[in-house]
């Protein structure tokens, strides 16, 4: 609990000093509004200030066509676009479309993987934010209802 209190204080400190702190400290604030939004476009506007993205074939989104299990869908995103600031995963048909957002810091390579939950068949969008704007690619993932499993 001690640790968590310290972290909370840090968060408050970061909020109070937004203008002067480097990006790393800035990002330490969890984007509540974007994550709470129930509409993909709104979530993106909360996070990026706009919901407009440029489709890009320089983003590699590796994700299954048919999810074995909607509770665990492996996703990998990488890109050759330069000066990446963040990579985000948006699943428009999820109750809360913004799934995760990864802040790239100096030295971080634009190549991330994780496992996500999907409530139903939906597009999965990878949104890459760079100093030149927002780029994206999307793939549909079918989520089916299992029979017996494993």
């Amino acid at each position, binding site marked *: 609990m001690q640790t968590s209190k310290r972290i909370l204080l840090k968060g408050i400190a970061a909020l109070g000093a937004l203008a002067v702190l480097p990006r790393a400290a800035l990002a330490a604030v969890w984007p509540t509004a974007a994550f709470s939004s129930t509409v993909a476009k709104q979530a993106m506007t909360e996070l990026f200030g706009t919901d407009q993205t440029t489709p890009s074939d320089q983003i590699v989104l590796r994700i299954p066509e048919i999810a074995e299990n909607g509770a665990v869908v492996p996703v990998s995103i990488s890109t050759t676009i330069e000066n990446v600031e963040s990579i985000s995963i948006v699943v428009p048909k999820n109750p809360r479309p913004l799934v995760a957002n990864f802040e790239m810091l100096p030295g971080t390579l634009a190549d991330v993987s994780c496992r996500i939950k999907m409530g139903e068949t939906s597009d999965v969008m990878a949104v890459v934010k760079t100093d030149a704007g927002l780029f994206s690619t999307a793939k549909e993932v079918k989520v089916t209802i*299992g029979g017996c499993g494993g």
Partner: protein
Amino acid sequence: MQAGSRTIHTKRIAVGLLLAIALLQQTALAGPEDDRKAFVAFYQSRFPDIPLQEFANGIYAIDADARQQWQDIEEFPPYEFAIDQGTALWAERFANGSTYSDCFASPTAGIRQLFPRWDADHERVETLELAINECRLDNDLPDLEYGSDELASITAYLAFEARGRLVDVQIPDDDPGALAAYEAGKQFYYTKRGQLNFACYDCHVLSVSQYVRADRLGPSLGHPTHFPVYRSKLGGMISLQQRFSGCVRDVRAKPFALQSEEFRNLEYFLNYMSNGLELNGPGARK
């Protein structure tokens, strides 16, 4: 006329007798090893492109898209937490100073493949789970609940330690009880049950690789090699018998208790069918 028809009749009886003898011989000869060879031959002819050892990977030997997702999960599988917990539990000293190791003659890498085995003293099939609780009993400790995380962690650790060893279930021929247990397990496997009137055989032999709603049915050959498994659906570990229980429920029959005689015999039969395959547990499944 009369003589002629009698001859034909006699001939018929003779042919019938011969057939009966042939059948009897076949039945008498069809021991576990013949069963196993026929079982393996079925899957090999059904999936000629799949190498025998691949069957240890279950449905992922058959379904490429699912295999990719499984491999992604195997990059860093959640069952590693269970292995860690099992490692710690295995090392713990009981109040009397002993450890689990003291109950088993083999090193940790040599334990998993000893089970299921015929326990002549108790006239029953002994599974790894049963043996762990026997060990606890010998040390005045209460049983671990079948289906508990603690027990699954220990079996996950022992499975991990035994990776690469071969399934090698023995049916000692000096004890008719062992063969009877095997036969009971075999009967269970082929018997239709439940409101849906399905045998294990119906799904995992006749309809293997077909879809049941969104799931593809896995082969029985190699099914026991990778348990216990982390099930994504449940977010936790399950034993082979918990999987049996799920299957029985899925065909709308009342499941037998974990570690019941029925399930232990089935485990004995199924493992025997997979003799010679590599142990690759613990596993990750959807």
